[in-house]
């Protein structure tokens, strides 16, 4: 970590303290899976409570008659020790059950032997502790009332009070201390290092919106300048800490859309690969300034894995120790794109078109507002007063025939509710999101600066975006380039209008299942407003993977413009939606619209894919017969 590049994780102390309390002490993210979460919590809380017994044991190992002052003779503490020792044992039994009987696929590629050894050590530590207490009670050496220790007291019946027990008491205490010391010695070489690093990694985890990427600074001092991550010394200290914190639990792998459709990427194996490389190159770099570290791609991470990622953030959401996989992947891409110019060739036209035409399909900017003409939407000309709300349409809804419907619907609804709005038309440019997620930070920043200049000059204060990617970029990322606006997603604004009674839909749209876009639900916490709209026009049905734990449509991370290897993510999601039996699959993102519509067609399903705004328009236009 001493080699790590700087990244600012100071500030936001109350938020960090809250994360520490809920994620570490409260085990919040582990409880996202209840069974394994309970298992881990029993062991974790057990060791928090049992911590003082390590000191007591070390003291007593040297001097049989001594213990910690005060605490060592408290009956209530002895009770806690008994209770939590048993909980830890139950936790270990559950863990063995999970690993040996249940054997979830998420452990594929993890070091299984290591985990077994550690579980054995934990069981050994706690068993020797209980037996030691039992033998002390048998010998009358206990400093507390024996009645406080139901378990140890019961076990003490196994022992007499003779010499054999005196010897056994020494055996148990030394076995206990030796296992603890071996455990500590083994720790740095194993995945169990997380007990030392995880609390820090959580504290220094990101506090802002998940969708924001850390900008690269091309104008700072040379030694701080980064072009992503090519070798170990390019990693930030947080990324190195991430690598040290991984426990190989595989929760990330389990939810990853790429892994789930047979692609090479596993977020777990990616972090493990980086960790191994840090351990291999780090010490050499510290010893020898001239050491030439090996490239992270492909030595630590296969090149295909880097490009499989859809930046959906499911892994980050799932990770109990706040590893930020997406940041790692984007940094690897940045290096490949900006330094080595190595990326899937089919994405090249997209980058060129974003650069040249300011939209990823190379369409003429003059055609950007064509969809709006027949609706009479105001196009904000230079020098005109800014509207109350600027509608940022985005490239997809401006040019894609299927996605256009959402733009038309949104405009109709804003008109119906009497909202003062306008669009930028040809002056709106690609936000740069696909370029940024591909790793082309230069191109993104050029677009960010251009768009911020346009918006600031127009005096825009509030923006509504119907594309979650634009929404995320405008709201979370343009702040780094001098653009601060109140940015809302169209589903948020429309939900407001419905609540205010300015739009009055009726619930006759049949059963509807709503697909959460990653950049809305997971990265920006927009979950309830679109659901309110769905409930206002029909009968909601939830998919198993929804809300913050949604499953990507397959388009994110610039995958709209790349060829997919392995199974199709969109078909996997279309399958899940169809299996709800709903008539309609409601979406709130132009890319989800295209991907899922394709997925449904490919599978030959019947479910209709449509933007929430269009459902709202239909509900208003065709009120049910009275």
């Amino acid at each position, binding site marked *: 970590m001493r080699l790590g590049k700087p990244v600012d994780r100071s500030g936001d102390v109350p938020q960090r303290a809250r994360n520490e309390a809920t994620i570490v002490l409260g085990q919040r993210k582990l409880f996202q899976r209840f069974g394994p979460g309970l298992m881990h919590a029993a062991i974790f809380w057990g060791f928090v409570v049992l911590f003082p017994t390590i000191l007591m044991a070390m003291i007593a190992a040297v001097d049989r008659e001594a213990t910690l002052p005060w605490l060592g003779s408290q009956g209530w503490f002895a009770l806690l020790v008994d209770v939590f020792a048993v909980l830890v044992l139950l936790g270990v039994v559950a863990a063995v059950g999970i690993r040996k009987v249940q054997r979830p696929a998420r452990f594929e590629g993890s070091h299984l032997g290591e985990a077994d050894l550690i579980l054995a050590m934990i069981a050994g530590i706690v068993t020797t502790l209980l037996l030691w207490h039992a033998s002390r009670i048998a010998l009358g050496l206990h400093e507390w009332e024996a009645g406080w220790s139901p378990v140890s007291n019961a076990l003490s019946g196994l022992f007499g009070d003779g010499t054999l027990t005196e010897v056994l008491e020494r055996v148990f205490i030394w076995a206990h201390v030796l296992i603890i010391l071996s455990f500590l010695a083994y720790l740095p070489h194993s995945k169990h290092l997380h007990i030392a690093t995880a609390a820090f990694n959580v504290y220094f985890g990101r506090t802002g919106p998940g969708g924001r990427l850390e900008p690269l600074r091309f104008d700072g001092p040379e030694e701080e300048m980064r072009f992503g991550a090519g070798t170990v010394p390019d990693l930030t200290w947080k990324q190195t800490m991430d690598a040290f914190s991984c426990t190989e639990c595989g929760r990330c792998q389990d939810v990853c859309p790429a892994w789930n459709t047979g692609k090479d990427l596993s977020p777990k194996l990616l972090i493990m690969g980086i960790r191994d490389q840090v351990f291999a190159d780090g010490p050499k770099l510290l010893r020898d300034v001239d050491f030439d570290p090996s490239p992270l791609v492909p030595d630590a991470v296969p090149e295909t894995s880097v490009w499989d990622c859809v930046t959906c953030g499911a892994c980050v959401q799932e990770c109990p120790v706040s590893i930020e996989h997406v940041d790692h992947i984007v940094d690897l891409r940045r290096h490949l794109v900006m330094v080595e110019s190595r990326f899937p060739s089919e994405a090249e036209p997209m980058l060129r078109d974003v650069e040249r035409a300011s939209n990823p399909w190379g369409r003429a900017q003059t055609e950007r507002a064509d969809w709006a003409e027949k609706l009479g939407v105001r196009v904000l000309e230079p020098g005109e007063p800014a509207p109350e709300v600027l509608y940022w349409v985005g490239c997809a809804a401006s040019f894609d*025939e299927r996605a256009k419907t959402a733009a038309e619907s949104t405009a109709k609804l804003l008109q119906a509710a009497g909202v003062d709005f306008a669009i930028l038309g040809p002056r709106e440019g690609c936000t740069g999101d696909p370029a940024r997620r591909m790793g082309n930070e230069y191109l993104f920043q050029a677009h960010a600066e251009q768009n911020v200049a346009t918006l600031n000059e127009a005096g825009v204060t509030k923006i509504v975006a119907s594309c979650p990617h634009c929404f995320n970029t405008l709201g979370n990322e343009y702040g780094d380039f001098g653009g601060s606006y109140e940015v809302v997603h169209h589903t948020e604004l429309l939900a407001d209008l419905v609540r205010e009674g300015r739009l009055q839909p009726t619930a006759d749209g049949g059963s509807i299942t709503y697909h959460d876009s990653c950049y809305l639900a997971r990265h920006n916490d927009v979950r309830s407003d679109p659901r309110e709209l769905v409930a206002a026009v029909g009968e909601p049905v939830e998919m198993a993977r929804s809300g913050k734990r949604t499953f990507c449509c397959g388009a994110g991370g610039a995958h709209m413009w790349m060829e997919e290897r392995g199974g199709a993510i969109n078909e996997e999601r279309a399958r899940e939606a169809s299996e709800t039996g709903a008539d309609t699959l409601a979406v709130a993102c132009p890319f989800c619209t295209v991907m899922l519509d394709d997925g449904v067609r490919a599978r030959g399903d019947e479910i209709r894919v449509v933007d929430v705004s269009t459902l709202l328009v239909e509900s208003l236009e065709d009120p049910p017969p009275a």
Partner: protein
Amino acid sequence: MAGVLVLVEHASGAVDDLSLQAVALARQVAAGAPLAALLVSEGGRDAAAQLGSHGVTTAHVAEDERLAAFAPAAWARCVDELIDRLDPSAVVAAGSNRGNEVLAHVGARRDLPFAANVTSIGAGEPPTLTRVRWGGSLLEEARLHAPLALLTAAPHMVAAGPVNGAAPPDVEAFAPALEPADLVVQVSEHVDATATGVSLAEAKVVVSGGRGVGSAEGFGILEELAAQLHAAVGCSRVVTSAGWRPHTDQVGQTGTKVSPDLYIACGISGATQHIAGCKGAKKMLAINADAEAPILNSADYAVIGDLTEIVPAITAELRRARER
């Protein structure tokens, strides 16, 4: 001679269009000084005769049976020998794959800079070049500091035209002193890119299929239609994802961008990613079962119906018209 040497590519006795454009650029560079051409391999003599009307005064034809197949280093040696002999102020070639490759070799052999994709040359010493960069997104003005300018002409950016009253050039054959190393890399075989022998990017007509075609076998009727029209067969991304056609057939943002006179889209819904690849078509005919398909907004003509009936019907009609 202090004139200009231009490398001319030709096929079956006819000079390539791109090379005529290179000759036009070379005339500009020569500004009245003598213009010599180099033609390699058989048919060079026939092709040379056409160059007189383009201002070439002398045509040097390199003759050696080992030059029958294109070999970039061998061509570069021919250029190299002529440079020694003629001492030109510039060597110009077409901005074709071959032209760029051969001049790159010449640059490497003589340790000279090389400016590719030049559109015009201006006054000044050293002269100002305008050249196309970044895939056509940028025109660069540059000065070339070199004792001998190596230039290729940007394709379709320089107008080729005959000059008045010029006689056929003098033809001088020579045998270059080729070495085995010059022939290590050479063309061994020509393989057609598509089944119909028409390349997708250059085809005047493209018959393209999407999900509506239904299967790899379903493309049979599209291939038959393409054969009648001397067209290339393309497809949409879903088709390559499904493995029905190779990725080289894909038309779209992540495949080939085409600009034929006629684009026939069969069973293609018209995702933006696909439209991005075929919007350069002069006319588009959509054949689709869905009257609401987005492709209809981009198409000039449309037939709504079952493509397995419509496509063979068009093929049959074309056959009948041909037989008549």
